[in-house]
């Protein structure tokens, strides 16, 4: 029983990471209709910034999260304004391919700068955890979950309580109508992508605290962000949270099912994903298209 509880806790903690990774991805997909294949690369860029600040100036990884957000926002804004805006009205395959190309460039540049060595961020408290009977909750993972919920709250507040958020939602609902009421589309596209990238950067900072990072470590996260968005449904922050936590639980519990092992993690997740797509394409909490 306690083993099951432990599994559920680990699943939720992992789910928190997926929530953090998927928030920006979901925003960009929902508003700009771009499936950003460079998302994982942006996540890992955030990880490297945290790692660099930690090894160079011993800045606590959780204190460097705002710096990740700021740096990635600037990069994301420039990327959308300068490059992706050029194909925003092209068929989806082209934005797919363009973001794949950007992913390739970012990953290669990271390889040149940081080499392919495994890097890890190890603050003094990284091994500690809360012991409740036979169940253990690692502090650092728990902090990651808290940050993920803070991120979700922040995104919800930006979208629903600010003028910029209203403009972003308007662009997502109807681009032409948004332009008619005086919204600068190019700026809004770039702003949306910048916010998405900033969230990716923070997620990367969290990831660096519990996982060794390499330039290619981001690629699986792109896939998982995709799975989370489909599982939860597009167009709502709460759907991303539900999708992320469920996905984490499925991954951890699926591996402990009889006859399966950790080698099947992706297969289980994607079989579930395909079933959801076919049976309930809107996702668990998604809005009607």
């Amino acid at each position, binding site marked *: 029983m306690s083993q099951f509880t432990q599994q559920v806790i680990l699943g939720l903690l992992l789910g928190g990471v997926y929530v953090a990774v998927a928030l920006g991805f979901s925003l960009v997909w929902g508003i700009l209709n771009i499936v950003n294949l460079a998302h994982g690369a942006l996540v890992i860029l955030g990880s490297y910034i945290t790692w660099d600040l930690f090894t160079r100036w011993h800045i606590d990884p959780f204190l460097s999260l705002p710096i990740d957000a700021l740096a990635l926002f600037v990069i994301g804004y420039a990327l959308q304004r300068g490059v992706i805006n050029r194909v925003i009205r*092209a068929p989806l*395959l*082209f934005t797919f391919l363009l973001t794949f190309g950007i992913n390739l460039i970012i990953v290669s540049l990271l390889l040149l700068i940081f080499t392919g060595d495994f890097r890890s961020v190890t603050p003094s408290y990284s091994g500690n955890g809360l012991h409740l009977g036979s169940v253990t909750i690692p502090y650092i993972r728990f902090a990651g979950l808290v940050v993920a919920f803070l991120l979700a709250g922040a995104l919800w507040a930006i979208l629903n309580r600010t003028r910029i958020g209203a403009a972003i939602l308007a662009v997502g609902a109807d681009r032409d109508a948004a332009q008619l009421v005086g919204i600068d589309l190019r700026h809004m596209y770039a702003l949306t992508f910048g916010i998405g990238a900033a969230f990716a950067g923070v997620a990367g900072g969290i990831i660096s605290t519990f996982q060794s990072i390499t330039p290619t470590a981001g690629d699986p996260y792109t*896939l998982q962000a995709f799975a989370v968005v489909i599982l939860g449904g597009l167009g709502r922050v709460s759907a991303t949270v539900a999708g992320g936590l469920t996905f984490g639980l499925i991954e951890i519990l699926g591996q402990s099912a009889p006859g399966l092992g950790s*080698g099947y993690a*992706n297969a289980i997740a994607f079989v579930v994903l395909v079933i959801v797509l076919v049976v309930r394409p809107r996702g668990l909490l998604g809005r009607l298209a």
Partner: protein
Amino acid sequence: MIAREERVPRRLRRVALPIGIILLAIVILVPLTSTDTAQQAGLPLLADKLWFRIATTVAMFVVMASAWNIIGGLTGYASFGNVAFFGIGAYTVGVLVSNRGWPFPLALLAAPLTATVFALIVGIPLLRLRGHYFAVATLGVGVAVGEVVNNLGPLGASTGLFLPIVRSDLLFFYMMLGAAAIAVLSTWFILRTRFGYGLLAIRENEEAAAVIGVNTTLYKVAAFCIAAALTGLAGGIFAQWNSFINQENVFAISDNVQMILMAVVGGAGTVLGPVAGAISLELIIQTLAGGGSAAVYSQIGLGVLLAVCVIFIPRGVIDFFGGQSRLSLRYLRQTLRETSA
């Protein structure tokens, strides 16, 4: 995607056709200089081991890009799981040859069959999805099948499968070339049938296609199965050629992305676009590929090339042949205006 009929003006056809025939003749005849009889007759060796490796790989990607083009380019369903067909074809040959002791030619016949059956099973539910959803669901299938294969004992699990080595560069080159010819001719033939027009109609507007009497489900699944059969055939040949297969070399998602790139850069929805894309991109990749940091630079180059192609020549390089468009500043500005914010 813009519907365009391939119409080659007579003047160009008079030049392009002979050039094409000469190039094809060179590709078919050059390898023959490596045979013992040709060497004894004192002919120069025009095709060494490296030549064969690159040429066979190029032919393999011609098959994969052309097959992807049938479902992705003609029908408009961007499949990111075609590599699963390649892997299934490869593992069919691998298991039949190394575990069951079948002769290779017989096993090779089974490769497209298993791939087609698999495409039928996953295609019927998945082809109801569209756009991003179809892309990701197929991607999921590709990842999942690879991972399951990687865990199954009878399939060699993570060690992979070893096949008895057949040393004949010539044989595998011609087989791959034959598969490429089948793939290109199938596309050419499909585009001249009612079936082909149905696929194009689905790509342009699926509801309208259904209204004018196209059985969209049947057509889509058929296109998916044809793509699977061709890709499975290439996988089967690869298994025996490489004589070693595992999850990493036959279920690589990067191969899937590469075939899409080739089709799109060359010109998706055309007969010769994927061929042009596969040859040019694979040659660029092979030229740039080197050890150490050179490989990193080649990746950056590939990424930049991809971005430039997608932004400036979304209809593919094939658009400049055949007299439709000319590569000019005006063309670049126009394609940019069509898609940018």
